[in-house]
């Protein structure tokens, strides 16, 4: 197999990679928003619980979670498909990171914004929805792009739970073709091709956020 053939072969796994990313985002985005906001607003024991959930998903190695969810949970009667397990574990892991971006963005907002809203007689929930979130989301878009890339790269682990993603394809080709130079270079290139555009978009957003705010906010 020539190098381009290897690359095409690896890209046969793209559909699975893309599906895991897509379903993963369905878990990640709501989790990040809900838990980021909860962590920002709660105090005391409630905040501790919220933080514990976030830390669990953020701090456990994904590779172990995948294994446990796929191979160990069925013993306790919880059976999920490989795709569900992958999307859930990768999605919530990234969502855990995302929640921190949401919280940081909310905290970084000038408190004067909330005060101005209060002084205008807006309800707290309205202020969150109309004033804080729009600004926070604009501010954290670059971070979110990074998380999307993390998610794409995280899918390299799903071959562990039998899904035929790009890394899996690379291993499969390695099975037919003992050509480590071609295959591992191809693997590197394949992910670069998928992720680099997202990186570029992220950079662009970063610059735009910087300009729109008149100054750079360090998250």
């Amino acid at each position, binding site marked *: 197999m020539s190098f381009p053939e290897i690359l095409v072969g690896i890209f046969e796994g793209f559909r699975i990679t893309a599906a895991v990313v897509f379903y993963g985002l369905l878990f990640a985005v709501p989790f990040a928003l809900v838990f980021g906001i909860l962590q920002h607003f709660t105090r005391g024991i409630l905040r501790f619980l919220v933080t514990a959930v976030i830390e669990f998903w953020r701090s456990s*190695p994904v590779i172990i979670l995948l294994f446990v969810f796929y191979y160990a949970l069925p013993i306790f009667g919880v059976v999920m498909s490989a795709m569900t397990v992958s999307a859930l574990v990768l999605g919530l892991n990234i969502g855990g990171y995302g929640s921190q971006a949401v919280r940081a963005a909310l905290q970084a907002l000038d408190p004067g914004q909330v005060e101005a809203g209060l002084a205008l007689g807006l309800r707290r929930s309205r202020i969150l929805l109309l004033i804080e979130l729009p600004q926070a989301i604009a501010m954290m878009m670059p971070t979110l792009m990074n998380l999307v890339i993390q998610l794409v*790269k995280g899918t390299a*682990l799903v071959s562990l739970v039998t899904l035929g993603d790009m890394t899996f394809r690379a291993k499969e080709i390695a099975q037919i073709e003992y050509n480590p130079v071609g295959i*591992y270079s191809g693997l590197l290139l394949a992910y670069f091709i998928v992720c680099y555009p997202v990186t570029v978009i992220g950079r662009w957003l970063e610059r735009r956020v910087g300009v729109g705010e008149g100054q750079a906010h360090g998250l």
Partner: protein
Amino acid sequence: MDFNHAFAIEIVPTILQALHTTLLVAVLSSIGAAAIGFTLEVTRRSGRLAGYAMRFVIDFIRSTPVLAQLYFLFFVLPFYGITLPAMVVGVLGLSIYYSGYLAEVFKAGIDAIHRGQWDAAKALGLSGFDTIIFVIAPQMLRNIAAPMGNYFVSVLKATPYLAVIAVPEMLGSGFDIASDTFRYAEPLVVVGIIFLFLAISIAQLVRLLETRLNAAHNR
């Protein structure tokens, strides 16, 4: 194949034997990543051409999975005559991978420093090197303690990947037990809990450091 608590406790000492490798790799890689990342970012700022080149290097590193990078370093480089021991490849691989992220963290940290600090240093006749070492870096450290700590946790969590290049770290020793005894749930859960414990300890340390830094120079 129920979860056997007695067995889980019995294997803890064996797994802890691999702890020192895991910690050694994590610490060395964190230091390496910070050093390479800082160099990348400072070089990026040093000129227009260097800027574009470093930007691309950083984006390339960030756009490919750590697994693919490790495979590449471990299996491909020897074909070009570079055969490094597994442990060195592991530390180098994680250092390079996370340097791409830390470079971004340093960028944000440096950008957040008021432009006047550069001006003041220049106006006092400090050289570029002195400015970075004595004026910018110490302030940057304070800005980035939190995100940098998060990446150190990530480095720790990434050490299980080194199993693929035969570094005897904790997850690998967990799998060894699993393949000896054919009990998977216990070693993986034990390894997972140790990781969770380590990750949370590091996060807590970082938080402590952060509050100390903030208390020292509260503006």
